[in-house]
């Protein structure tokens, strides 16, 4: 009996040690990924000043010129357009789901949104090629497009439809479920007492939402938007299929762009033959990782605080 107990306690201790070790190891995976990418990108980071890498516009691997600027701008423009489209729509939907939706509507809508979070990015890409690109192309060649093209950021030099706008629309739809589900949860977490106090003062429902609920939920809503942003920032396949992949700094919504993610995905096959090329590509991956990690970490810390202190 004594020995059996000792055995059971030993098993328990061993299991405790091994699960702890494994948890620590997996938690450090993000750090490990960063270090591995840093090690591979080291040759290019040490031979060139960071300013030149980030701000130079020439990307000519054959002549050893590696400037990330067009790609960074490509990623930022596409993501920016996506966020401009997605944020208002997502916040209004989240407010509706958390504050107005009757239970029966909620029971139908919520699972649909959850399911759509699982649709693979390639499917969004195909859909973009089938519907969004021709749509943008038609706008570009229509009367509306011609009158729009006098405005800054709307010039039409690229009639193909493979453009920043197409990428932005596709990405916006991809991040809908991310932003909506986080924002809805945050809005729901606002204490009912606050709302009741506002109603008691005679405020209407929308006024309560505007002055009380959203103000209280602001940090969490911001975190939701940031999570959506970083999801869009790192998206590869869907964007790559619709933005045109022309290495230039986009000047207009209808210009083609070349995001960082697409650069990595498109060039991996050829990177072996040229020195420094793979360092440059893994440097791009490192850049993506750092940005996404910073954004994610700050958003998650905010959300954790909300979950803990209510």
């Amino acid at each position, binding site marked *: 009996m004594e020995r059996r107990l000792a055995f*059971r306690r030993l098993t*328990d201790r061993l*299991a*405790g040690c*091994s*699960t*702890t070790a*494994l948890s620590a190891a*997996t*938690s450090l*995976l*993000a750090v490990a*990924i960063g270090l*591995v*990418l840093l090690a591979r990108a080291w040759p290019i980071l040490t031979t060139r000043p960071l300013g030149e890498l980030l701000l130079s516009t020439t990307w000519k691997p054959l002549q050893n010129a590696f400037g990330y600027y067009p790609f960074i701008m490509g990623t930022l423009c596409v993501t920016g357009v996506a966020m401009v489209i997605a944020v*208002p*729509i*997502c916040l*209004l*939907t989240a*407010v*509706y789901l958390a504050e107005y939706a009757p239970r029966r509507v909620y029971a139908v809508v919520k699972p*649909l*949104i959850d*399911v*759509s979070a*699982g*649709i*693979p*990015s*390639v*499917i969004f*890409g*195909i*859909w973009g090629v*089938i*519907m969004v690109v021709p749509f943008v192309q038609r706008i570009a060649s229509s009367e509306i497009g011609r009158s729009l093209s006098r405005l800054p950021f709307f010039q039409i030099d690229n009639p193909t439809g493979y453009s920043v706008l197409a990428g932005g629309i596709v990405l916006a739809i991809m991040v*809908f479920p991310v932003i909506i589900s986080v924002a809805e949860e945050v809005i729901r977490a606002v204490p009912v007492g606050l709302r009741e106090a506002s109603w008691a003062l005679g405020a*209407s*429902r*929308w*006024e309560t939402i505007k002055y009380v609920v959203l103000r209280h939920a602001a940090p969490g809503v911001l975190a939701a938007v940031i999570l959506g942003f*970083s999801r869009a920032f*790192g998206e*590869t*396949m869907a964007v790559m299929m619709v933005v045109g992949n022309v290495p230039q700094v986009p000047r207009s919504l209808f210009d083609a762009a070349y995001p960082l*993610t697409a650069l*990595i*995905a498109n060039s*991996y096959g050829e990177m072996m033959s040229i020195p420094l090329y793979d360092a440059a590509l893994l440097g791009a*991956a490192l850049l*993506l*990782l750092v940005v*996404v*990690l910073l*954004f*994610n970490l700050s958003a*998650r*810390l905010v959300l*954790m605080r909300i979950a803990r202190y209510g």
Partner: protein
Amino acid sequence: MKRLRRLEEYLFRFLMGLSLVIVLGSLMLILGTMLWRGLPSLSLAMLTQVPKGGYYLGEEGGILNAIVGSLCLAGGATLLALLLSLPVAIYLHTYAGCSRAAHLVRLAMDVLWGIPSIVYGAFAFTIMLWIGLRASLLGGIIALACLELPIIVRGMDEAFRLIPSALSEASYALGATRFETATRILLRQATAGLLTAVLLAFGRGIGDAASVLFTAGYTDRLPDSLLRPVASLPLAVFFQLGTPFPAVQQRAYAAGLVLTVIVLTLSVVARWLSRRLMHHVVR
């Protein structure tokens, strides 16, 4: 003044309705488009044959290589991720409790969840170079397992959290160790939730293209070895869409439809299962 306030209320209610319609409408539009463009070119031959010579010029063949390849990739990755994540989830709920360490692990998992799949691909590719592995089924499995790991851990974490703490307390009171409580009480109670987490991760794995692009490669043959390249559905879609022949592009739509159906089925089954099996669980 009063009318203005009422107007504002109605305006925003209208805008909310409109956004909801846009969100649901775009989802329906995507599914509808996939059905409408994919169904006409879907045939039995596509599902049961591997590509023959000239397939990418529009001749005979199918995408069986990609379907089987994707199932192998996602299956292997899910198994590997499950082996790694189950101990982590158990750690979070029996050994760590509410400690700072548990918070840190959860934070790390949430952060890992956000890392783009192309970065996982680049990471796994670098590791493969170091250990001398070429694009292969094994490489793809490693990359996808990294991607799926945080999803499974967080899913299991939620599943364990639903178990009333009185159950494990009762088990401790009877003299069970933490390990025994974890394996005999927690795991059994959380089976439904664990299965849901696994299915959702499988769905994410099967649909991901960017991480298998470098690591798994592509081939026209059925997967036969862990060390050989393997085809996958998302890449089949991507490559076929990239060809200039309309007949091959049609097949890309059909392959996309197959992928959509697989992913949606997994997701619906996972949700149904979790609701169904919940009935047998003590609350």
